[in-house]
Structure formats: structure tokens, C-alpha cells
């Protein structure tokens, strides 16, 4: 927060409110329990249960109020209640307390509005859910070693599939924008914080309750629908479905609010002289993604609410016998669902293009077309959702349009490849671990993109739709794309965030194992899909068992390589406190690397004013030097 001189009577910091705040996490848990009990009690008061599967009004109210109780305990409503009671506005000292200044490690365990603390909180949460979802994947691959059910019942298999997919969707929608976007976007635009710091904290703290509610669905019988939640199957399901609905609703709310906050921050908080034409490419990626989140997630929230009405009040919006239609769910869900997958991947585009100039030691080749490419992907993503419905019985006349719009997305995506290849072309590339991941991203995403063209073609889709080909296709884009970019990006940025660099030699070995195991797994799965294996089945054709065993074994190696990576992080960050603090190990010109490590609470003492793109490796001129005013750089007139 900018320290604006406001004259309020100097008041002693209220020790009670600070104590409450410090114990926020504990109070949050108590609040969640109380909220749960209150909801459960209210839901039992004279409501007639309309769902034969149990009292889902009770469970929905209990979950919703426990989320509210958690946020209240964390202290999200303290300021609101304080101003209703006529308390004085927060002083700069209060703000510094809220930013966790001087609080040490404890600031990571309470409501803190410093974007860097929130970024680190995201790192931990993303890793937790990446490995929780990964455990699900391992169990699924273990089960598919045999073509008939072995150690999992068909019912728990579907719950396993559903949990793996929703956890991963949840993780992937925040994987890059959460840790790296929150941490670095304000710094990259020369700001001292986000536009709405409390809202930023809220978007993070909505997610732990969402994750726990989702996991708790196991106690309520799970849910059989996968992440797509198709109605009317969802209408039919047991109470675990309500956990899915509340959790996904909270995730949607978080995506929406985070989008709003990022958009406002990038538009209003840029330092003087930093025009949109000089924005680092990663900030562009986050900015475009935020628009997608802001526009698509409300559709998710409303369709979730409609399903809640269907299940509790028998609204029959998706039940044909009552006048509704399953197509309503399919269209609304995918209207959110397709932009959602670009919410995963556009930050990854931005991230790899941010890293490319650093390791090739030259400017990004075609900055403007790269921005255009990401914009094109973002805009087109809203016009392709019906390719998920090619075989659903939609009017056949609609198919050619969606086939064309889907194939058209490969044009802006191709631009990203052109920019990457142009930047790499005959450059003296430094083969660091992040650079290896950039290369793997390009390779994997190329396969993901090409298989996508097969699926966009309607007649070919008649054969490939809903098969393992689709499954392998999106794992190529999201796991091979986004997760590889995330691993590379964290390897690149952890030295700035923590002052510790991961071991280069171990990282190199980990990379090759991960890259080869990933491709072995999903090439096998592309093949079983072409040979006619349906997604989400526990039993399959015995003749496909060989390929499935190969895929499973490679998947176990892939899982082990990621565990090893986690071990590397723990080793460097926690077990080796004696390691030297890193300031700028990659010799990057980005402004985030010109700051001291650890980055001070308010980032900059004075706002930097003169900017160029941070890729001027031929002159070695950084984007701007923080902390002091610089003479105007070429083309960077302060405004």
C-alpha cells in the first residue's frame, strides 16, 4: 500500500484484534466446524427432503456455512465489522501488520495481504494438490494393470477418477497464475501490491476449504460423474455429488475474483512509463487468462447453482421428464469448460516465453505477434465449446462451424511456436534445467496440438471422441504443457522466491526421466484410444492389456520422478539452510531479478519510472532499475 500521509490520531494498535488475527487459522478451523454444525442444524429444520439419496439440503448448508465460518475465523470480515462499529480506518502500522512485516514464518499461516506471501502459500497448496491428484493417477494406473476390476470396486473407481480429475483441474487452474502470477506480476509492473490485496488473500483462502470439501466427498459415497458432472447422472447421485458442487462452486468463485483482481492490477497499477507495449510477456499471459477467468467462471458458478436447485428443489432444469434437458448442462458447462483449459495453458505460454530470452541471451523474437497469438487463443476459446458435443446429437448444421473455429485455434497457437523457434534460432542457448523444460514444453505441446486437430475434425472425432485418445491429448497439453512449464518455472523462480537454487545436476537427471516417462505413458494411451478404449472404464478389452501395462509402468516412473523433484525442493529449501542466497543466478534482466532477495515487503522504495522490455540482452540494459529514478531509455518516455 502506498504510504499516503493521512492524519489520524495516533492510536495504539489494538492488541485484541491482532491476537485474533494471529490465531486466524485455528479460529478458522473452529469457525468451519461451527458453521458446519449450524448449517446441519438449520438444514434439518422442517425442510422436506426431496432427494431420496439423503438430506442434501442439510449437507449443502453445512458445507457452505463451514466455508463462511472458516473465512470469518481467518479474519476476512474483521475490517467490515470494524467499520460497521465505527472503528478508525487501519493505520500504516496496521497495514504493515496485515502485510506480515517482520512476522517471520508465522505470516504464512495467517491471513496476509502481501502478494509474495500469498504466492508462497499458493506454491505449497499447488504442490499438495498436485501430489494428491497424482496419487489418484497412480491408483488408477495400478487398477488398469488388469483388464478386469482388481483391487478397486467399480464404484470407488469412479470416485477415484472423479477426485483425480477435479483435484487436477483445481490445481491446474491456479498452478501458474497462483504462485508465480501473484508473486511476480505486481513486481513486474513496478507496483507495491495488487489492486485489491484483501481480495487476493480471499482468492487463496477459498481454495483450502474447497479442496477439503472435495476430498470429503469420499465420506459421502463419492461422485460418479468425473469432472464434467454431467446431468442427469448428477441428479441421480448420492451426497458426495453435493461436495463436488460446493467445492467446484468455491473454485469458480476464486477463479472469477482472481481474474477481476489481476485485470484491475494490470490496468491501474503499472508504473509510470510502463505501457502495454512494454509489459513483460508473462504479465500479458496472466492478463489475458484473467479475462478468460472473469468471463467463463461465472457460467460455472451459475450452472453449479442450477444443479444444486435440481438436486434439492427438484427444479428439473436438466431432467427431461420434468421439461428440462441434459443439453443445457452440456452447453453451459463446456462454455466454461473450454476457456478453462486455456486458463491452464496461456500462463504457461507466457512463462516459457518469459524464460526463453534469459537462456538464449537475446530479445523475444516477435513480441507483438506473441501477444497477438495469446490474445487470439483467448478470444477463440469462447467459440469452440461445441466440439465437446459433436456426437451428442446437436443440429448437424452446427458442426462445420465449430470444426472450423477449433481448427482455427491452431493458428494463434502456431504463432507461439514461431516465436519460440525464432528466439531459439541459432542462439547460443544456455542449457539450464528450466531451459530443458522449455524445450520439453514445446515438444509435448506440439503433440498435444496435433492430436487436437484430429479431434477437431468431426468425422475423425466420431471414432476418437471420449476415447483414451482424448484423455492422452489433454494430458499432453495440460500435463506435458502446463505442468512441465510449472516445474521449469518454479526451478527458474524459486531462487528469487526463497534465495535457494535447486541442484542443477539432480535436476537434469530428473528432467530426462520425467520427460521420457511422460511420453512413454501418453503415447501408449494415444494408441489404446485409437484402438477403441473408452475413457473412465474399469474394465476394457483384454487385447489392450499389454499397452495398458506399458502405460502404467511408465506412469509409475513419471510419478517417482515428480516425487524426486519434491525431494529436491525440500532438500534445497529446508534441509540445506547453509546454501548461499541467490540474487540473480540466471543473469536475467527482468526487474524482478534486480530487487534484493528476499524481496522487501513493499517491493520498491520509490516507484521505478523508465521502462523498456526486459529482454535487451545485446545491450545488457535491465527493464528498469528499482529503487531509483533512471534517465529515460530508448522509447520509454515517462508518461
Amino acid at each position, binding site marked *: 500500500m502506498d504510504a499516503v500521509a493521512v492524519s489520524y490520531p495516533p492510536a495504539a494498535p489494538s492488541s485484541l484484534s491482532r491476537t485474533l488475527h494471529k490465531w486466524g487459522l485455528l479460529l478458522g478451523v473452529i469457525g468451519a466446524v461451527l458453521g458446519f454444525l449450524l448449517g446441519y442444524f438449520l438444514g434439518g429444520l422442517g425442510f422436506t427432503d426431496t432427494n431420496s439419496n439423503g438430506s442434501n439440503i442439510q449437507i449443502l448448508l453445512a458445507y457452505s456455512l463451514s466455508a463462511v465460518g472458516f473465512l470469518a475465523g481467518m479474519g476476512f470480515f474483521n475490517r467490515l465489522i470494524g467499520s460497521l462499529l465505527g472503528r478508525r480506518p487501519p493505520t500504516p502500522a496496521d497495514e504493515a501488520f496485515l502485510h506480515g512485516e517482520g512476522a517471520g514464518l508465522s505470516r504464512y499461516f495467517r491471513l496476509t495481504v502481501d502478494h509474495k506471501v500469498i504466492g508462497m502459500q499458493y506454491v505449497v497448496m499447488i504442490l499438495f494438490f498436485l501430489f494428491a491428484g497424482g496419487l489418484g493417477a497412480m491408483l488408477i494406473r495400478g487398477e488398469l494393470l488388469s483388464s478386469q476390476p482388481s483391487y478397486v470396486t467399480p464404484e470407488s*473407481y469412479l470416485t477415484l477418477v472423479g477426485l483425480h480429475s477435479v483435484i487436477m483441474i483445481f490445481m491446474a487452474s491456479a498452478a501458474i497464475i497462483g504462485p508465480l502470477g501473484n508473486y511476480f506480476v505486481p513486481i513486474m509492473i513496478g507496483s507495491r501490491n495488487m489492486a485489491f490485496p484483501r481480495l487476493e488473500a480471499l482468492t487463496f483462502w477459498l481454495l483450502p476449504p474447497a479442496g477439503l470439501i472435495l476430498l470429503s466427498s469420499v465420506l459421502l459415497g463419492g461422485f460418479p460423474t468425473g469432472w464434467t458432472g454431467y446431468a442427469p447422472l448428477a441428479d441421480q447421485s448420492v451426497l458426495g455429488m453435493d461436495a463436488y458442487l460446493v467445492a467446484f462452486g468455491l473454485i469458480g468463485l476464486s477463479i472469477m475474483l482472481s481474474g477481476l483482481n489481476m485485470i484491475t492490477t494490470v490496468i491501474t497499477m503499472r508504473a509510470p512509463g510502463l505501457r502495454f507495449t512494454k509489459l513483460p510477456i508473462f504479465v500479458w499471459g496472466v492478463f489475458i487468462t484473467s479475462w478468460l477467468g472473469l468471463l467463463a467462471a461465472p457460467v460455472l458458478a451459475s450452472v453449479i447453482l442450477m444443479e444444486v436447485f435440481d438436486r434439492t428443489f427438484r427444479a428439473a432444469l436438466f431432467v427431461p421428464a420434468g421439461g428440462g434437458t441434459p443439453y443445457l448442462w452440456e452447453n453451459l458447462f463446456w462454455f466454461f469448460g473450454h476457456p478453462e483449459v486455456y486458463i491452464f495453458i496461456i500462463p504457461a505460454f507466457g512463462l516459457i516465453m518469459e524464460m526463453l530470452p534469459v537462456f538464449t541471451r537475446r530479445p523475444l523474437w516477435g513480441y507483438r505477434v506473441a501477444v497477438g497469438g495469446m490474445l487470439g487463443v483467448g478470444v477463440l476459446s469462447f467459440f469452440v465449446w461445441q466440439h465437446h458435443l459433436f456426437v451428442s446429437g446437436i443440429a448437424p448444421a452446427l458442426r462445420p462451424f465449430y470444426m472450423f473455429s477449433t481448427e482455427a485455434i491452431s493458428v494463434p497457437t502456431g504463432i507461439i511456436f514461431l516465436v519460440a523457434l525464432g528466439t531459439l534460432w541459432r542462439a547460443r542457448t544456455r542449457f539450464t534445467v528450466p531451459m530443458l523444460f522449455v524445450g520439453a514444453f514445446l515438444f509435448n505441446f506440439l503433440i498435444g496440438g496435433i492430436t487436437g486437430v*484430429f479431434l477437431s475434425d468431426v468425422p475423425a472425432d466420431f*471414432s476418437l471422441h471420449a476415447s483414451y485418445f482424448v484423455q492422452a491429448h489433454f494430458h499432453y497439453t495440460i500435463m506435458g504443457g502446463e505442468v512441465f512449464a510449472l516445474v521449469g518455472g518454479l526451478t527458474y523462480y524459486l531462487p528469487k522466491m526463497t534465495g535457494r537454487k535447486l541442484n542443477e545436476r539432480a535436476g537434469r537427471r530428473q528432467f530426462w526421466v520425467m520427460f521420457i516417462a511422460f511420453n512413454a505413458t501418453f503415447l501408449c494411451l494415444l494408441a489404446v484410444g485409437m484402438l477403441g478404449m473408452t475413457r473412465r472404464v474399469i474394465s476394457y478389452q483384454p487385447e489392450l492389456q499389454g499397452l495398458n501395462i506399458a502405460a502404467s509402468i511408465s506412469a509409475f516412473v513419471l510419478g517417482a520422478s515428480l516425487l524426486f523433484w519434491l525431494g529436491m525442493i525440500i532438500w534445497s529449501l529446508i534441509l540445506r539452510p547453509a546454501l548461499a542466497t541467490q540474487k540473480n543466478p540466471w543473469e536475467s534482466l527482468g526487474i524482478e531479478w534486480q530487487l534484493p532477495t528476499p524481496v522487501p515487503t513493499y517491493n520498491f522504495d520509490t516507484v521505478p519510472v523508465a521502462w523498456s522490455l526486459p529482454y535487451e540482452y545485446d545491450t545488457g540494459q535491465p527493464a528498469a532499475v528499482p529503487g531509483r529514478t533512471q534517465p529515460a531509455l530508448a522509447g520509454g518516455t515517462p508518461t
Partner: protein
Amino acid sequence: MPQRRRNLINIIAATWVLLAAAGDIALNSLPLPPGSATDIAGSETQLIRILAMMAWPIFLAVVAGLVFTLWVNRVAPAAAEPGAAALRGNSRLQTTWIASSTTIVLGLAVFGTITLANDTTVPAVAHAEPNTPLEVQVIAQQWYFTYRYPSFGGFESAHLVIPADREIEFHVTSLDVTHSFWFFAAGVKADAVPVHDNSVDMQPLKIGTYRIECSELCGIWHGSMSDDNAQIVSAGDFTTWAQQQQQLDAPIMKYLPPYSHTYVPAPGVYGS
């Protein structure tokens, strides 16, 4: 155009054609799914082959470019030497790239639309007798398919049997949640949606026994909703079988709902 650039373009074009041809020869020796058991399966196989033939040189070119430029100019990770000359872009190359990818995409879309139009219209050429399509209804419910033959009094069968010499018109519907009728070898996939009639036409070509499965998640036993005993038989066998079934089913016909393209789901299937 300078001679050097023209040579380069010629080399690229020739390599491209060679790679595509090599890819096509390789693909021809593979039994590409879904095969050629029906007319639309044949055209899907053809389309997948053409897409693969086009995608293969692009894939190879990008990977080769990537590996070449990374390998040839690599330096040690910690090397401190300055970068190569700064290139900020090349608008002619960018325009060419965008224009050519747009052209490829437009071509693919037009080609796909033509294939689609051919698949979904009944061919104008006269068939062997009888040339009217045979209507077969596919009724999905948790967790099996039932088939009805309206031209034989609307009898029901637990296995699909169709004749090889006639156009078949599938009418797919569901009695509870959304399923999907996937006749893999026939290249047919159609969602079964309650109170909705989803229709697909196709012409069987190869007599044999095939697999049918459900490809839309439909509840606990989704993985077991398959049948390895779907048959394409000769016209004579089919008529014999159908008449036999019709007679067998005659006593129970009055208990079945009258034939219709959609049915109202029974109360209680969504939990009440």
C-alpha cells in the same frame, strides 16, 4: 526472387512431399482404426490417414528445427559469453507462417466438411434391393443397450444384428441418463440422451462379429456396458433371424411400449 531462396523453397517442398509420401506408405501398411467394416468407418480411416500424413512432416519439421538449433549452438549452462545478434522479428516470415497455417487450417476444415456431408447424406447411387434404409432403434439404459426393429413389428433384441447390404438408420435414445452408443468398427458414435432421438446413417460392408460399448460416463457399471456380440450378417441370414425373433417376441409385444423415437423415462430413475 533470388536464386538461392528459390532453391531453398524447392528443397523444402521436395522434402515435404517425400516425407508425406513416406508417411503415407508407412500408414498404409498399418491396420489403421476404425477399419473398413462400414462406409463411414472407411471414410474416417481415410481421414485419419490424411490428417496423419499432413501432420507428420509438420511435426518432424518443428522437432528437427528445435533439435538442430538447440544442438548446433548449445553452450554450457554457466557460459558467460554474450548472445548471438539480437533479432527482434521478421515480419515477412511471420506473415508467411500465419498465412500458411491459416491455409492449412482452412483446407482441413473444408475437407472435413465435405467428408461430413458425404457421410451424413444418403448416397444417390441405387443400392441392391431393397434400397430403403433399415431403421434400427438403440435404447440405452443403465447399464445395457436394447435394439428395436420397427419394420419387423418393433420386436426387441439384446444384441445388435444388421444386414450387410442395406443402409442402416440408427435412432439412438436413452431411458435414464446420458449414454453414448459406440460401435467402434462401424465408426458410429452417438450420444443416447433421454427424450432425444439421435440419428446416424451408415452402410455395413463387412460381415463379422464386433464390439459395442458405452462411451459416456453413465454410473457405476459404465465400464461393463459393452457387448462383444454385435453382428453384421448377410441379407438372407438377417431376414431369417428377424422373422424368427418377431415370432418369438409376439406373445410379449403387448407388454412393450408402442414403438416411438423417444420414451419418457420411468418415474424414479433420478431418485425420488
